[in-house]
C-alpha cells in the first residue's frame, strides 16, 4: 500500500515537470528571417491561383502571448491609436469589427501596415522591422476575437471602455478578401 502511494507520488512529481515548459519568447528574431513583403496577397483579384501566401508559422506570432502583448504595446507606441483609436476607429476605420477592407488574414494586415493604403494609411516599410509588423498584425486580429483566448491580451494598462481583447467575441471576418459578406 505504502509502496503504491510513493509510486503514485513519484509519477505525479515527474508529471509536474512537464509544466516547466514555458512559452518561448523570441527576443532576437533572425534579421534576415522574412522577405515576405512581395509575396503577400493584397486582394482576391489576381491572375492565376487565388491563394494568400503563408505568413510565418502561427506559433511565432499568432500563438505567442508575448508577441501579441508586444504588438499591443507597439500599437500604442507607434501611434496606430492616433487614427484607429483603441479599435473603435476615428480618422481610420475601426479594427474591432468584422469588416476587413483589405482582408483579415495575418498576411493581409501585415501588407496593409507595410505598404500603406489609400486615404491616409501610411506605409511603414523600412520604418518598422518586419517582425514587429507581424506582432502588430497579430494584435490587430485579436481585437475582433480572431486569436485564441489564451493568447489575446487579458488586460489593458489604461482604462478602456471596451473589454480586453481576450473577452472580445469571435467575429467572422467579412470583406473583400475575407468570407463574402452575409446579406440578411
Amino acid at each position, binding site marked *: 500500500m505504502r509502496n503504491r502511494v510513493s509510486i503514485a507520488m513519484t509519477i505525479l512529481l515527474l508529471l509536474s515537470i512537464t509544466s516547466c515548459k514555458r512559452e518561448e*519568447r523570441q*527576443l*532576437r*528574431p533572425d*534579421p*534576415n528571417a522574412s522577405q515576405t513583403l512581395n509575396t503577400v496577397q493584397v486582394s482576391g483579384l489576381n491572375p492565376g491561383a487565388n491563394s494568400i501566401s503563408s505568413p510565418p508559422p502561427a506559433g511565432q506570432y499568432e500563438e505567442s502571448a508575448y508577441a501579441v502583448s508586444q504588438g499591443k504595446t507597439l500599437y500604442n*507606441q*507607434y501611434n496606430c491609436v492616433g487614427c484607429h483609436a483603441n479599435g473603435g476607429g476615428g480618422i481610420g476605420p475601426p479594427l474591432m469589427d468584422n469588416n476587413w477592407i483589405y482582408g483579415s488574414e495575418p498576411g493581409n494586415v501585415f501588407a496593409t501596415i507595410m505598404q500603406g493604403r489609400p486615404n491616409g494609411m501610411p506605409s511603414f516599410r*523600412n*520604418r*518598422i*522591422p518586419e*517582425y*514587429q509588423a507581424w506582432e502588430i498584425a497579430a494584435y490587430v486580429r485579436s481585437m475582433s476575437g480572431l486569436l485564441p483566448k489564451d493568447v489575446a491580451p487579458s488586460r489593458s494598462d489604461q482604462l478602456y471602455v471596451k473589454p480586453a481583447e481576450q473577452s472580445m467575441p469571435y467575429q467572422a471576418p467579412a470583406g473583400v478578401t475575407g468570407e463574402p459578406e452575409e446579406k440578411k
Partner: protein
Amino acid sequence: MIGFSRVPLLAAGVFASYPGDHSILHPAGPQASNIEWLYWVIFWIVFVVYVVVVLGFMRAGARTYTSADEMLPIMKDEAGDRRASWAVGSAITITVLTLFAVLVMSEITGKKVEGETSKNPVTIQVIGHQWWWEVIYPDPQADQTVTTANEIHVPVGKRVVILTNSADVIHSFWAPSINGKRDLLPGYSSAFWLQIDQPGVYHGQCAEFCGLQHAHMGFSIVAEREDAFSQWKAQQLKPAQDPTELVTVHGRDVFLSHACVMCHTIRGTDAGSRLGPDLTHIASRQMIAAETLPNTPGALAGWIVDPQRIKPGNRMSPNPLQPDDLQALITYLQTLK
C-alpha cells in the same frame, strides 16, 4: 566622522568591495557623509558585540569541564542563579537601548539627509524607463528645456532637486557616493535633493528589480564646476548640427528613413519620437545603452545592428543595415556633439 572611519582600514577593505567612487564609504556630498557616519556607528556597535560574543565563547571553551561519565550531584546555587538572571536582564536592556539609540540616530540622519532646503536649486527630472534613464532639465520656457539620457550633469556645491517619475514599472535611483536609494514610481512624482562637493563622475544603478535588463540600467552623475556646467547646458540646448559632408548627410537620411526615427529624437530634424533616448547630442555622452557600452564607433555599430544580443529583451529592435548605410549612420551620430 572621517577621523574614526580611518582606523579600521582592514574592515573597510573587506566590506567596501566596490572600487573607486561607487561606494557609500567614499561620500562626495553632505548627505552621503551623514549616511557614512551612520554606517560607521552601526559598524562599531556590531563590532563590539561581535568581539564580546567571541570572547565569551572562547572563555567558555577554555574552561575545564567534567567528563560525561562522572555524574554531578544536583545542587542549588542561589548566588549563581541571581548572577545569571542579572546578566540576562542587563543584556536584554543593553540590546533594547542600543536598538533604540540606532533607531533615533537613523531617524536623525534621515532628517539631516532630507531636511535641507534651498531657494534656488537646480531642478532635474529623472524618469525611469525599461531600461534607461530619461533626464530632463525643465524650464518655464519650453525651448530652454534640456532633454538627455543616462548622464546627469550637475554643478558642484549646489543643491540639486531631483523630481522622479517612471514610465512603466518601479525603478530605484541609487548613486551610493551621493545619497541613499529613492524609488521611482509610475504615475507618481516625488522629489528629493542631492549635493556633490567634489568634481568627478559618480556611477549609479537601478536598485529595484525592474525586468530582464535591470542589471544593465546604470547612469552616471557628472559633477563639474559652475561654468563648465552652464557651458554643457548651453551646448545641450542647441539643436543638432546640420550635416555638411556627403557621408554625414547620407547618415542622417539613413536615420530618418529607417526604424531609428520611430523611437528617437534628434532635435533639428524630423525625428521627434519620445520612446527611446534623445540622441540630439549623443556624441557628448561617455557611454551608451544605459552605461552598458562605451560610446565608440564600434560599440555603437554593434548596438545598432544587434541590441538584443547585448541586452536581451530591451525595447530596441535589431537593425539589419547595409554596411555603407551603417557606416554613414555612425559617422553622422559621431558628429552630434
